């Protein structure tokens, strides 16, 4: 499925719709509700003095948007970017404040319907990704899809690491 077709599917923002994507040999999904748009991976501005999972920032029509590298965040094997690498721009609420962030993925796959009833609880063992970032698993013909709890991934405490970083630096100095 081409990126254009997927973007068209995104327009249907129903509760159960999920966007699936590849990330370091894993098939993951995020709810379409939180997705603003998908853009191709381009040049980013690197940020100094931040944790490695922050890939950098991009200019999205005049707004500066932070981009998170999920592979780095989940401690997976990081793939080099190619022409299929994308940034999914997501909008989530952190402490009642709407925050726009991007996540880097290797390849977007498709928009599929995953009703809540099909989502199984996360097995405590065997997942490569920290379980608190996972909302559940969904079974498909090809195997399992991991549905991310995206607000947890980009949550206040996680993001706040950036805010605390410099304080730690300051103590060390």
């Amino acid at each position: 499925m081409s990126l254009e077709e997927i973007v068209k599917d995104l327009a249907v923002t129903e509760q159960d719709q999920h966007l699936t994507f590849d990330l370091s040999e894993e098939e993951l999904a995020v709810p379409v509700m939180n997705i603003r748009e998908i853009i191709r991976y381009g040049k980013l501005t690197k940020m100094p003095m931040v944790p490695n999972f922050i890939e950098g920032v991009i200019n999205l029509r005049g707004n500066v948007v932070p981009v998170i590298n999920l592979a780095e965040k989940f401690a997976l094997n990081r793939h080099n970017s190619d022409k299929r690498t994308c940034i999914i721009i997501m909008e989530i609420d952190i402490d009642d404040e709407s925050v726009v962030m991007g996540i880097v993925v290797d390849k977007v796959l498709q928009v599929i319907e995953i009703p809540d009833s099909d989502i199984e609880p996360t097995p405590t063992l065997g997942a490569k990704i920290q379980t608190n970032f996972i909302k559940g698993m969904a079974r498909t013909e090809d195997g399992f899809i991991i549905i991310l709890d995206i607000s947890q991934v980009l949550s206040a405490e996680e993001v706040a690491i950036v805010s605390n970083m410099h304080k730690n630096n300051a103590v060390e100095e």
Partner: protein
Amino acid sequence: MEIDENIQIFISEGEELLQEMEESLLALEESGDDDEIINKIFRAAHTIKGSAGLFGLDHIIHFTHIVENILDDMRNCLIPTSSELITVLMRSQDYIATLLDGIADDFEGDKTEEAELIQLLTAFKTGGSETPACEAEQITPDDNPPSSENDEEEHTQTEHYHISLRLGIDTFRQGFDPASMFRELADLGEIVEAVFIPNAIPDLDDMDPESCYLGWEIALKSNVRKEIISDIFQFSDVSQLTILPPQTHFSEYKHLIEQLPEEEMALGQILIQTGSLTADELQRILNQQQEKIEAGEPASQNRTGDMLVENKVVQKEVVKEALNKQTKVREQKQKALNFVKVDSGKLDKLINLVGELVINGAKLNQITETIQNEELEETMEGLTMSLEELREIALGLRMVPIGMTFNRFHRVIRDISRDLDKQIKLEIYGADTELDKTVIEKIGDPLMHLIRNSLDHGIEMPDERQRVGKPAEGIITLKAQHEAGYITIQIIDDGKGLDHNALREKALEKGIIDEHKKLTKQECFNLIFAAGFSTAEQVSNISGRGVGMDVVRRNIESLRGNVYIDSELGVGTTITIQLPLTLAIIDGFNVSIDDESYIFPLDMVHECLTLTPAQIKEASVQNYITLREDVLPIIHLKEYFDVDNEQYNETYMTHTDRERHNLVVVEFSNKKIGLVVDELLGEVQAVIKPLGRVFKGLSGFAGFTILGSGMVALVLDIPSLIKRVVGSEHQYFDSLKQKSIASKGNSIVH
């Protein structure tokens, strides 16, 4: 109540008037009796009452009316000005402010407070002696209204005012209600008779239902002064108004009938309309004036007013009043011409748009350079210049003087010093220093907190001050001034100062620092701003309002500002706040480090230079270089940022050989440091975007900006960089000092 636009205007104007009232009250306290100031206060109260009448806000009218009465008595010297009275008036002014505030929520004020205030106010009235409190030269008292000095036999025997009123055709369109005018008249006395004059009403076919054709002849029994009656109609659209005091000369009544409808508001006309002068008399005067001009005398020396006085037709005060009114009307006209009130939301939108323009302009500029078309380049040059000017103007719109914010503290200091039984004077310098409106709005609360602290903990009690040989009256100085790209605000008190050892002890106790931490004196002072430092022990109703000093610091830092404390025990404390001039757009200087762009605020760039091989060598082993025989501390920005940890060593080697030859020397607060960068890329205009939720904790950066290429770049926060370098330097020197002292065998408690 539903808040429509007009009420909104009433509220905001009311707030301005109250502000004016407060300033005047403070001035009155300073100067003692001053007619001009009392008049100003009276006018403010009166205008609020009048406008409240337009909206039928009876509770506001009721209370302001009582305040106005007292002020009127002050004006007429029936009540002497006293500090107690001013205190009550200030409380009344605060109360009116709460009434204004409450309009939106239909809150009609705290009735017990109102009753208390009314009681206090009226106590002055009855307590005041009946004899005028002012000097003999005073203007005519109430019960003796000004009248022409003509033969008494020709005067009417009436005991009441005669008011001849014709409302303007636009009265209703302007939102005035004749009923409210009558209400106000009834407040002043008894309306004996009001005869409606229907003459102006056209045939039903020609009548416009929105127009006003009303007029009255009114007899009012009252012992107030004429000006007070005419004040009622001051703002309304009145096509003709004549107020004749009791026992007026017959001829005035005669000429009232002959009067023309309103024309040019010449002085003579004002006098006619207020009934001080008849048209006949005016005619006589005008004839004389004409004769003199014809005789070759310059007209300017024979203003109508002078001639009237010369001829003893009217009293001096009446002429003065009329002249004042004329000037006032003219001034108001000018003011209205020179200022436009704009919704600040619109201004913000404008600034944002200008920001977009600047970014796109930079982009276009870059494209122009690649295309190399002469015509395009010329156009671009013109466009760039206009853009720059547009930016300057747009940013200028948001700049407001800090004086307003400063003046607020007169009252705060007055009230608090009374509460604390301290004597404190406020001195203000640099009130006209301009600062971005957003910054001004947000700096008020931190300033308030700092000043409360100085009042409470800084300035000593008068007897204590005298014991140590200081004047009993303490001084708090508020000072604002510009410094390259920044503004500094200082709060200076001449109080007891801070004991840095005590502060250190306390911080140890609270576990904010540990035993081994060496601190400079300066660092000890700044402990005050550490989270968890201000504690319950210090809480009083003055300074400890649940907000710690750490909140103050955070608020200031959220404006990209800094705050420092300096103090000398027994001499006083100086708190310095540094704030950026604007939060929106700056002139920047673009440099690159590892192919990423970084922007320096141009204001703070002192010079740029390429390092000599000797300096490079020097820089690679230590954190300073020798520049023109001076030692300059430097930061290797690349190392400081540590942009990519893993490749760090590799790139460091290649870059030291290759590009990192350039040094940007920045200066702030008389401190200079050098920053080593790869390449110097030149000037840019940078629209500053906030660091946002994710990066707000990142120190050393003021925000993001978007370059002409569309790439995002970080804007450096020079003051915080300098603070870091200088801070660690202090520590270094301090530890050296400690060592040398220790080696001499002295025991020093730090």
